């Protein structure tokens, strides 16, 4: 899509905004609708949009496939790790009181933050790796073919 000037300029403006919105959804999820799943998808959309308008190779310079595959596992490990941490400190699995034993409410908040973070990371990475897997298989379709 080399000659679509408007698309490229708009994408450059939008990609950053979309990422910012994703982080808002992620970290404001305690107060407003949204959370890890939604934020993860929105963050992945920013990368996918960039990849659609420019090229997959450009995105893969920022997020190489090996990194995406590892972050996919990292998110799940962060989630399960929170649970294992509370298990090791003598509480039930995923009981967030373990994170701040003297202030259970703070522990809950921190626990939700970590867990939602794990969800967000995994969802972003999975969406991106599925996108890579689909797009990486085909030769790029010419503009006139659409």
């Amino acid at each position: 899509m080399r000659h679509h000037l408007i698309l490229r300029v708009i994408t450059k403006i939008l990609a950053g905004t979309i990422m910012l919105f994703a982080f808002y959804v992620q970290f404001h999820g305690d107060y407003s609708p949204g959370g890890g799943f939604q934020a993860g998808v929105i963050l992945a959309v920013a990368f996918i949009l960039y990849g659609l308008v420019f090229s997959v190779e450009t995105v893969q310079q920022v997020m190489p496939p090996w990194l995406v595959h590892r972050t996919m596992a990292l998110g799940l490990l962060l989630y399960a790790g929170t649970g294992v941490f509370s298990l090791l400190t003598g509480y039930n699995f995923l009981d967030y009181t373990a994170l701040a034993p003297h202030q259970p409410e703070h522990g809950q908040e921190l626990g939700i933050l970590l867990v939602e973070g794990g969800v967000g990371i995994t969802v972003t990475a999975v969406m991106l790796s599925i996108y890579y897997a689909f797009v990486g298989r085909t030769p790029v379709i010419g503009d006139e073919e659409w």
Partner: protein
Amino acid sequence: MAIGLAAVRTRSLFALVMLSGGFSLISAALFVTLDAVDVAFTEAAVGAGVSTVLMLGTLALTSRYERPPVHRPWLPLFVVTVTGAALIYGTLDMPNFGDANAPAMLHVMPEYLAREPHEIGVPNIVTAILASYRGYDTLGETAVVFTAGIGVVALLATLARRRRRRDGEEEES
């Protein structure tokens, strides 16, 4: 309804993908009307956004037009009609829209609403239930998403890499 009919009629898969994206957006609006903002958010982002892109990616891999059907449509039509009638019959028992005495409002909901502010203290109760009370469920969901990702990577990505490697070897030889 109109989108559904159009989706059945059309043979162009590109139009079909666009229609399903539009359908997702409309159902997201429907969820907002039902006060399920979190669900609407997911539907708009996943259904209308990402899955449309992924389906376009699939279209690029396969052909762009559906083959004309070889079977008569009467048996599928009969099955769909029966299922649809059963579903509509099921809705007759459901409580009215916005009914405060609906079973969903009476079972565990009051307990969550009463316990949540002093136990967790997060204003968005959906987040609190999802991440704390139902932490196990959400862990399972994340694991499902992860498994789906691994599956796709194992099936598609390695195939592409293998093909690229094979092409490279052919060029060398």
